């Protein structure tokens, strides 16, 4: 895929995400209407629309504050700054993105923002300690690739929308807990069933929303990163180190999971079953490393068992 095709595909998917979000919200609101009466539905609908618009405008900073990221200046981390500057030049970005730091020993990084101009990259203190210059270059090139391909708007929007849906699902759940009995007595039992369906539907919808992002774009960003640095091995080594590190991020939630270079969710390991992989936001690291190895013609030892599907 050429850059233009990638940008076009990102635009189409952005549209798809927005449409999916609206449809999902309409279904949920309709279910609430039937279950609790039209007053609830209307209020919930207005909250959702308001939050959606606010989210679209402030998406970048919402994600930053949800992840506990703070903006830094060049003096704070000159090495990181230079690395990002170089990656931005290699990607042909008009402006070097802002740089954010997250105080967390778990190594990870992401890029977010609504437009390439307002995009920023965030790195944990853990990743800065773990990786050497060459590996960090690979990681930052991967983030630049997301910015250049216009993935970041899509990914940031999806994060905010998934956040809205989970918020509403939570609110529904609690209102069921507190007023469920009364409602099921006064109204028809159908209403309660619908509300339960909506509660079940919401997380599934959120997962679907994240899946429209497709794991393919991670492979694409890896490939672009290899092209930008001319060094697939650097990124591969970084991914290898990330796989070996099992520390979970402190401030992470489902909504922002797909943004990170490596899936930050660790605690759902036990839930993996035959459904494993279906709702993963990231392709397996070993697969990503394999593809980079093919590009660069080098070989790293396989990721040790137990860390393989981090």
């Amino acid at each position, binding site marked *: 895929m*050429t850059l*233009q095709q990638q940008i076009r595909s990102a635009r189409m998917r952005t549209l798809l995400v927005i449409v999916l979000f609206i449809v999902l919200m309409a279904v949920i609101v309709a279910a609430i209407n039937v279950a609790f009466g039209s007053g609830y539905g209307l209020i919930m609908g207005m909250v959702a629309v308001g939050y959606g618009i606010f989210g679209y405008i402030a998406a970048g900073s919402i994600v930053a504050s949800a992840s506990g990221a703070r903006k830094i200046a060049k003096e704070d981390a000159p090495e990181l700054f*230079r690395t990002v*500057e*170089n*990656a931005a*030049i*290699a*990607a*042909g970005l008009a402006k070097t993105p802002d740089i954010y730091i997250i105080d967390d020993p778990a190594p990870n990084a992401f890029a977010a923002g609504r437009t390439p101009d307002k995009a920023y990259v965030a790195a944990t203190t853990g990743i800065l300690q773990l990786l050497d210059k060459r590996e960090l270059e690979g990681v930052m090139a991967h983030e630049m690739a997301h910015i250049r391909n216009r993935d970041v708007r899509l990914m940031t929007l999806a994060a905010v929308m998934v956040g809205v849906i989970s918020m509403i699902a939570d609110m529904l759940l609690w209102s069921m807990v507190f007023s469920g009995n009364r409602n099921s007595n006064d109204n028809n039992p159908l209403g309660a069933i619908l509300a339960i369906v909506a509660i079940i539907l919401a997380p599934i919808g959120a997962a679907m929303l994240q899946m429209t992002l497709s794991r393919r774009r991670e492979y694409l960003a890896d490939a672009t990163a290899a*092209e*930008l*640095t*001319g060094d697939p091995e650097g990124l591969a080594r970084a991914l290898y180190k990330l796989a070996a590190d099992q520390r979970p991020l402190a401030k992470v939630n489902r909504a922002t999971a797909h943004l990170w270079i490596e899936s930050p969710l660790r605690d759902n390991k036990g839930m993996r079953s035959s459904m494993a992989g279906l709702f993963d936001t990231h392709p397996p690291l070993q697969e990503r490393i394999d593809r980079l190895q093919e590009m660069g013609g080098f070989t790293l030892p396989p990721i040790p068992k137990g860390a393989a599907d981090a």
Partner: protein
Amino acid sequence: MNILLIVIAVIVVVILLWLVIAYNGLVRLRNEADQGESSIDIQLKRRADLIPNLVEAVKGYATHESATFENVSNARAQALGAKSLSEKADADGAMQSAVGKLFAIAEAYPELRAVESFVQLQTELADTEDKVAAARRYYNAVVQQFNTKQQTVPTSFIAGAFGFSPREFYRLEDDADRQPVKVDLN
């Protein structure tokens, strides 16, 4: 009769649309190539600006290396005077080897390597070297796309009709020169 007219009209519209899109694509790539070239220029200029300070710093310690200093300032003059892309690339290569030699000399003076401003200059130069390389990779990638589009059917027809011409790659003389200057900060 009517159907035939409609079919012809549709075909004409499609061709016109394609023309517009293909032409815009070429213009976009040409602009990106221009942008890439000026990004290389900025970094080359930045490096040239660092050179006098570097020479001053080393001069204070290594007094018997006038040939090397001359080499460096010649390379700098060449870089500042370069007009065409290949001239710039040549000057770039000359500059890299001249600066490399200068740093090799500096290695022999531990007192010099202890000077903070010198170490800073070294870091700056190494960084600029990386940035030139980054800008070059971007430029060459864009030029590759631009040239391929002009040489492949059907965009080649538009390229010919509207006077697009292939761009020159930014190439350094030989592969040894492509290695960035090794700066050891230890």
